[in-house]
């Protein structure tokens, strides 16, 4: 069907916002950020080209090194624990249990709440004077110690606990859909062969659920790079700089420490990391034709 002039104008007018957003916000803002990272801008942006000087400063900056170190710990633990727990929850629910709807709602409700709420609740639960540590001691475990949130070397693990609590339900929902999509014939064949159930899961089902695992892993990974609200509300990067994360590093240097050059160098580094993770995944999905 050939489009008349009016139809063509209508289509263009409808796509104008999307085009504007693409050009101005995404392409424009990204290039500007990348350019700023090559200048010595401090409180106000300037165009004094300094090459990769900011990146040099960035990777000798203690706060940034700690941030990167933390995000690696958080990322590895958060993604693997959420995948593991989410998968186990899905398998449990898939055993034709009673009250399935209620159980699923309980596993998933944390995902509906904001990171700020999650961070504040867990900050209270992990409070060393009145939180879980106190409960354990009052139950007779006199030497029980659970003061991770106030110790620099363990504070980052507290963010993992809260993050996993919030995200496992999402993984469960994705995994459950994957499990329900598996043909019953496979289960029948495995039963005929006399395979124990756990063997079927490990050797047959998990390899078949590559797509579910990939989707969940990519979702969780992008959440890792964005980790900000949780760190701000739960520990605010502390004690000291012990639980700083890259997103917070960028925000602090943009708005409090007036160092635009360094902040944009950090943001650009984050961008490159994300592209390295997401591009292969999107390519893979596009080839599978799932995006169209």
């Amino acid at each position, binding site marked *: 069907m050939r489009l008349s002039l009016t139809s063509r104008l209508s289509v263009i007018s409808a796509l104008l*916002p999307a085009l504007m957003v693409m050009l101005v916000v995404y392409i424009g803002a990204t290039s500007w950020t990348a350019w700023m990272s090559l200048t010595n801008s401090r409180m106000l942006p300037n165009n004094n080209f300094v090459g990769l000087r900011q990146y040099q400063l960035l990777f000798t900056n203690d706060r940034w090194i700690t941030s990167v170190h933390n995000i690696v710990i958080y990322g590895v633990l958060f993604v693997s624990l959420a995948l593991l727990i989410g998968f186990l929850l899905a398998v449990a629910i898939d055993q*034709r249990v009673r009250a399935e709807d209620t159980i699923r709602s309980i596993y998933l*409700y944390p995902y509906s709440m904001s990171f700020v*709420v999650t961070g504040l609740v867990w900050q209270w639960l992990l409070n060393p004077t*009145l939180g879980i540590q106190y409960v354990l001691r009052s139950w007779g475990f006199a030497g029980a110690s659970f003061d991770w949130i106030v110790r620099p070397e363990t504070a980052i693990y507290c963010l993992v606990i809260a993050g996993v609590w919030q995200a496992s339900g999402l993984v469960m929902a994705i995994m459950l859909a994957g499990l329900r999509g598996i043909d019953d014939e496979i289960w029948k064949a495995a039963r005929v062969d006399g395979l124990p159930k756990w063997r079927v899961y490990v050797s047959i089902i998990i390899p078949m659920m590559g797509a579910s695992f990939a989707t969940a892993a990519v979702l969780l990974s992008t959440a890792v790079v964005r980790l900000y609200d949780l760190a*701000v*509300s739960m520990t605010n990067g502390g004690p000291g700089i012990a639980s700083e994360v890259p997103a917070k590093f960028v*925000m602090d240097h943009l708005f409090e420490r007036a160092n635009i050059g360094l902040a944009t160098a950090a943001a650009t580094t984050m961008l490159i990391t994300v592209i390295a993770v997401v591009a292969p995944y999107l390519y893979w999905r596009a080839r599978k034709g799932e995006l169209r």
Partner: protein
Amino acid sequence: MTALAQSLPVARPRKRMTPARWGLYAFILITALYFLLPLYVMIVTSLKPMAEIRQGNLLALPMSPSVDAWIKAWTSACTGLTCEGIRVGFFNSLRILVPSVVISIAVGSLTGYALSLWRVRGANILFGAMMIVAFIPYQVFIYPLVRVFSFAGLGQSLVTIVTIHTIFGLPTMTLLFRNYFTSLPVELFKAARIDGAGFYQIYARIMMPMATPMIVVAVILQTTGIWNDFILGLVFAGRDNLPMTVQLNNIVNSTQGERAYNVDMAATLLTALLPLVIYFGSGRWFVRGIAAGAVKG
């Protein structure tokens, strides 16, 4: 990803109880308690007076439950300099939420419609690019956008934050509606074209009325997403419009002197209330929203 939504309703016949089944139910019970623990602690803490919190057990039920902390959290808790409670943030969030949800869905559905049913050159490139940027961290865009809005004379304001939510909601909303319109029978669209209906007529009279289920999903997705937003509200809303999540963080984390944990938890619950109501009220629709928005994350 639509398989996720459709496959959930399947319920299989139940089995008899065996030792393995008891183990299974024990696992489910323990994990369910772990997931419920924070919600339970939030509720009991918010109902206890401070004296009880100071000497009592975190898990104990309140001996003399009172809603004082709730009233204080709502009307007089301090967020930095002012002490007018979390209600200020609640109404700010509401004022941000309503226009943001309406406008982002309107723009997203129109974009999805134009990209799905109309043959436009470069449509796939535009769509693919939008899917990629949905993954990029906000930190990359934030500072240039601050400059653009202050250059445009908007600065930090309600208009700014609504525009921002529309911009960052666009990829997900477009994806949602594009996929839905693609799944509709093409004959419907062709018949309307032959009858002489124009671009916007088909959108308003035929496509949007048929997209009601997607609109419900989009509303749930955007409402929870925008309500739970912290970073965008913090940067773009301006001091007079700070959303509830930002106010909550200020109440809890900028207190001088002894912390009023009961007030903190009441304020936290109040902030979580709307998403929780939507979640428990909408049931499977929420899961559909997650499935549809899964690409964004």
